[in-house]
């Protein structure tokens, strides 16, 4: 694994949305297949579910609600996908990255702060009780996971003595960070699932409120928001690979292959989590996050800091 990350020419930026879309499709296919399996149909029959959904939603009539705040609503709708695209900018695939930002780690954190605004606006814009409840549930949950994830991202930054993604990946040459920062890794993965409103943290899009934030979306808006949800999950998985799972490190194959493989594996784990675990209620999660998780993650950061001071 090269020590330096090479920043590719901007023309390659065209590939980023394609790769992201591919990952999102993989995630959605896996989800569809798992649903098919849970319903007693063969696993493979569900793999085409996202394609069916795309076709269906593309031809579906767009509808809106009375006095919906269309400007904010549509901005929020496209916002999720845009945030996902912004998130992947500093992430290295193998030795290449779109932008070798000096603040790569914090960049991701900032982008997941943008998701707060996007999801709340999506809930607000629809002028519907259910979607508003969904938006507020998201913020309530976000207040719980945000501090832990901020601390969780400090740990690898301290260990690499840098915020640059290339340095973080290079610092894992001997030992992947997931090995000695497991708490940070778990907290980070949980927060990726949470800001995607997915699975156990999916109460903002919960079926008990008619889909919550997604309740009033239809047609192409719905497609973009749901694609954005999978894209954000994929971006989070890719970032976790770079920051905790050693980036492209691995035997035999070139590093970009390993990066992609690890990302797919982690993304699959996120997708599967939805089916194995029941949903968490945000009001109950708040106490757990503030009273149990924050001290644990602070201890983790302390351990990392002590180790680095003594190196």
């Amino acid at each position: 694994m090269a020590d330096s990350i090479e920043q590719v020419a901007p023309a390659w930026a065209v590939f980023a949305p394609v790769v992201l879309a591919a990952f999102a499709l993989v995630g959605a296919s896996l989800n569809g297949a798992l649903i098919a399996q849970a319903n007693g149909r063969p696993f493979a029959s569900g793999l085409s579910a996202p394609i069916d959904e795309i076709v269906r939603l593309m031809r579906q009539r767009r509808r809106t609600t009375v006095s919906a705040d269309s400007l904010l609503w549509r901005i929020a709708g496209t916002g999720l996908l845009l945030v996902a695209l912004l998130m992947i900018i500093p992430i290295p695939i193998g030795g290449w990255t779109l932008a070798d930002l000096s603040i790569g780690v914090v960049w991701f954190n900032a982008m997941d702060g943008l998701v707060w605004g996007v999801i709340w606006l999506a809930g607000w814009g629809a002028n519907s009780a259910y979607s508003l409840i969904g938006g507020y549930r998201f913020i309530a949950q976000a207040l719980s996971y945000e501090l832990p994830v901020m601390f969780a991202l400090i740990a690898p930054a301290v260990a690499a003595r840098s915020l640059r993604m290339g340095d973080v990946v290079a610092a894992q040459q001997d030992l992947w960070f997931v090995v000695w920062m497991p708490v940070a890794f778990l907290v980070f993965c949980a927060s990726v699932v949470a800001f995607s409103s997915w699975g156990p943290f999916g109460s903002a899009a919960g079926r008990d409120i008619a889909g919550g934030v997604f309740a009033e979306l239809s047609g192409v808006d719905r497609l973009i928001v749901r694609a954005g949800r999978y894209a954000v999950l994929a971006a989070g998985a890719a970032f976790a690979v770079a920051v905790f799972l050693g980036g492209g490190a691995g035997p035999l194959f070139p590093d970009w292959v390993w990066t992609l493989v690890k990302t797919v594996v982690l993304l699959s784990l996120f997708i599967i989590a939805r089916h194995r675990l029941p949903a968490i209620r945000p009001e109950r999660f708040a106490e757990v996050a503030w009273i149990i998780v924050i001290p644990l993650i602070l201890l983790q950061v302390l351990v990392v800091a002590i180790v680095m001071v003594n190196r």
Partner: protein
Amino acid sequence: MDMSGEDAGKHEHHDGMDMTGHEHHAGMDMSGEDAGKHEHHDGMDMTGHEHHAGMDMSGEDAGKHEHHDGMDMTGHEGHDGMDMSGHEGHKDMDMSEHDAHKDMDMSGHDHAGMDMSGHNHAGMDMSGHNHAGMDMSGHGGMDMSPGGIPLASGGDDRDGLEMDVLNVPFGPALPFWPAGLVMWCVLHGDVIAKAQVQLLGAGAVPPGDGVASENSTAGEARTRAILLCDDAFTLLSLAGWPSAASAAVRVRNELLQGGALADAALDLARLRRRVTRSWLLRWSLTGIRTAGSSTDHAHEATGADAGDIRHRLIEWLAEAEGICQSGLVSTSTHEDHRQSLLLSAIPGLVEGMDVASARLAIAGLGLHTAALAEVEVVAHG
């Protein structure tokens, strides 16, 4: 939609339900990540409220839903004949503007009460609804009803904050909701301040307790097991656990189609073990209390005993498993009485709860409204 018996004049086009001039919810969204079975349709919203209840049926998890999701027809009086149980197999309904009501069996429907004159919602008679609390004063010169919807007034909520008051009806047809039950809520944010329930009358009582089953001799045991699986499915879906819910609904579907009781017993045993072992479900469902006792001690409806939802769920699964294994069911002669008592317990139960907990609590009651539907019950809270 077969509108036999309808007065065609009142239903020219689907637009009739759609306030002309408003961009309104005409459409139905059938997002099913499960592309194969679009059997639920949603989103026929016909309210004039600023909030649209129950729209989305994201059937990320299909299976056969026998209840119509999201047909929220509040504001209409005289909704006789919304018989929603026993429906199977509604195809993918993408209701574009000019599609009339196809495929929806609304036999016995009476839309006489619908007054859809233009933008004026004053004409809509909201039975059981209370607009008295709306304060429209202040802010002189401004249009107090943008889009025809009056602004929300304020009111103190459970925690002493002054919050906007939303009047949201939880309609007669929602996913994971007792069919035909309407709960008129006064919401502060997502906390229910007051609730009032009404059970809409049914046009005809379906045979076999709402379970359409050709095999009447297999009878009570199978019916009871199907109903219990349905209740478990509802509760698990509301708890946000799609795969366990799918397992429950698969058992139910197989029983409905005449599958072997022994197989069902095995599946139910597995599901029950899975649910019992899940610590996350236990933690998530803690603290929601529901009314009524378990089905085994069916003689009093409102007891101070364990109203814990998870406990109730496991009992249902255990009872269904027992029925499937033994083929016998312990009938309760007080079932109807107990159910109507549960119905009247709902307003007191949900007051002060937030929407999520309230829906879980109501699902935990195990209401089977088809049998009750003949008697239209109105309870105030």
